[in-house]
């Protein structure tokens, strides 16, 4: 399996941090952008992106491809995405196992699907068409979900594995999403991580969520919690050298707090490497 080279430890690029990033050049190996935030005619977002891209690798992460929707693929969206990719030259482009709307409407959310053979065939065909259009392998992320369906014919990780292998796409493993969905639906998050094809995983997302006691919501407005750090360690042991990053989308802390979370990833990875070196010796 040919994969893009690992980029190290990254951060989701958000406007609140533009000035500090440009002035202090913090120790961040790469940035992930929300593609739609830069699919604009001009102005500050693109100007900031160009300046940051001059010094850092960037990957593009979208929320509007609507891969699982039964509406036709939005070719206008894909053309704009491709144009942005030509400008940014990202290491890869990602989106989600989700849909965002039908009948021409968008709900601006990553919506769940039943894990059926029909859904699988549908999303595989669309990923293949997107890959043909973009002329590159797509990276597809497991989404957080809050409802699950009696009609589902397989587990989420079985769906993701089959999808990735049939569409020959790559995977973005959102460790927090695994945890949130496992809590909400009562599956084993370790079994999920063990069930996805590790050789196709090119990126980890790490983020915080909101604990509503009876269910958890993927809000990206909290620090990464201990359970998710434990899962990260498991995912890292299984998937090896994969680009990892912190996603924060609300309740923004000082940049230093996110750098601390990135350092925590580095510390876990260093510990794993040391253990492996010792056991090999």
């Amino acid at each position: 399996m040919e994969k893009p080279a690992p980029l190290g430890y990254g951060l989701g690029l958000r406007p609140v941090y533009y000035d500090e990033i440009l002035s202090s050049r913090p120790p961040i190996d790469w940035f992930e952008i929300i593609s739609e935030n830069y699919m604009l005619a001009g102005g500050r977002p693109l100007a900031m992106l160009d300046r940051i891209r001059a010094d850092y690798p960037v990957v593009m992460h979208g929320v509007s491809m609507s891969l699982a929707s039964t509406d036709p693929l939005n070719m206008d969206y894909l053309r704009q995405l491709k144009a942005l990719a030509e400008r940014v030259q990202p290491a890869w482009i990602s989106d989600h196992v989700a849909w965002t709307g039908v009948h021409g409407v968008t709900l601006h959310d990553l919506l769940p699907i039943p894990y059926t053979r029909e859904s699988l065939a549908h999303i595989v065909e669309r990923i293949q068409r997107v890959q043909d259009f973009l002329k590159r392998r797509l990276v597809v992320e497991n989404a957080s979900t809050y409802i699950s369906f009696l009609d589902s014919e397989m587990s989420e990780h079985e769906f993701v594995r089959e999808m990735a292998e049939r569409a020959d796409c790559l995977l973005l493993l959102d460790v927090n999403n695994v945890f949130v969905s496992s809590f909400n639906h009562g599956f084993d998050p370790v079994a999920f991580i063990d069930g996805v094809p590790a050789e196709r995983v090119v990126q980890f997302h790490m983020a915080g969520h909101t604990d509503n006691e009876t269910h958890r919501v993927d809000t990206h407005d909290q620090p990464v919690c201990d359970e998710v750090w434990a899962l990260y360690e498991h995912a890292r042991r299984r998937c090896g050298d994969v680009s990892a990053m912190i996603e924060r989308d609300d309740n923004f802390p000082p940049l230093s707090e996110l750098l601390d979370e990135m350092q925590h990833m580095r510390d876990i990875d260093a510990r794993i490497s040391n253990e492996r070196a010792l056991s090999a010796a």
Partner: protein
Amino acid sequence: MKLAKFQSMFQASVRAGSGEADKPLLKKLRSSPHGANPETLLAVYQSGYRLRLADFVSQDHPGLRAILGDEAFETLVDDYIDQRPSRDFNARFFTTGLPDFMRDSPTWRDDARPVSMALFERAMVDAFDAPDKTPLAVQALAEFSPDDWPRLAFDFDPSLALLELAAGTTASYGAAINEEPPPEKVDAPATGDEIEYAAVWRVDHESAYRQLEPDEYVALCEARAGHAFGDICQMAAFQQSGDIAPERLAQCLSSWFEEGLIIGLRVCSDDQSSKTPSSA
């Protein structure tokens, strides 16, 4: 259930919010292992949908919220979400239709101040990510012979919007973004009365605005429509201000350069310069 039917049902449920209509969908959902019933879990999507779209409107329209008050603003936003669902993949453009929605709505169309504020704030948002162009310095004029000046025409930054607004709109907006009390309420203007003019554009990556005197508003409109400097001087609006029209227009022109509004200069052909300005 086929995927397409499920998605139609799910979307209708999210848009409508929780209610009796959810029952067929709820029958398709598994129970939560931690005690949340399917209604609660479905409501994560239903409430998230409205909160997210309402947040887009709040971010783009602080002035509108300030002049309407929270309750009326939220009623407007609810109506807008219900009647104008988003059809653009980019959330940035969800609010673009709000001024037109208000002008079409029996509830809002006769209320000039809120409609005017919505138009103004849309222009501010649009200016922020309009196409990039490089402004010209006033020295660019030196490249043209004084004999050509009457036939000089100007190209303007694509972020520029010229607005005719209800009086007090820009002051109310300024107070709102500075979190000051709104200025004393201005009554809705009668047609053609109690209006103000404003230019909105982008400077150094930020949206900017200023009020315009009526003569400058007319001059800017005509200049942007492609009319030449000499033609604009001949216009009725300038003639009425006495015999200083060229000087006044030169003063305006200087401001336009200083503010980064002008991105191109060209000499019109005789045919072009002789066309009659649209508002003369």
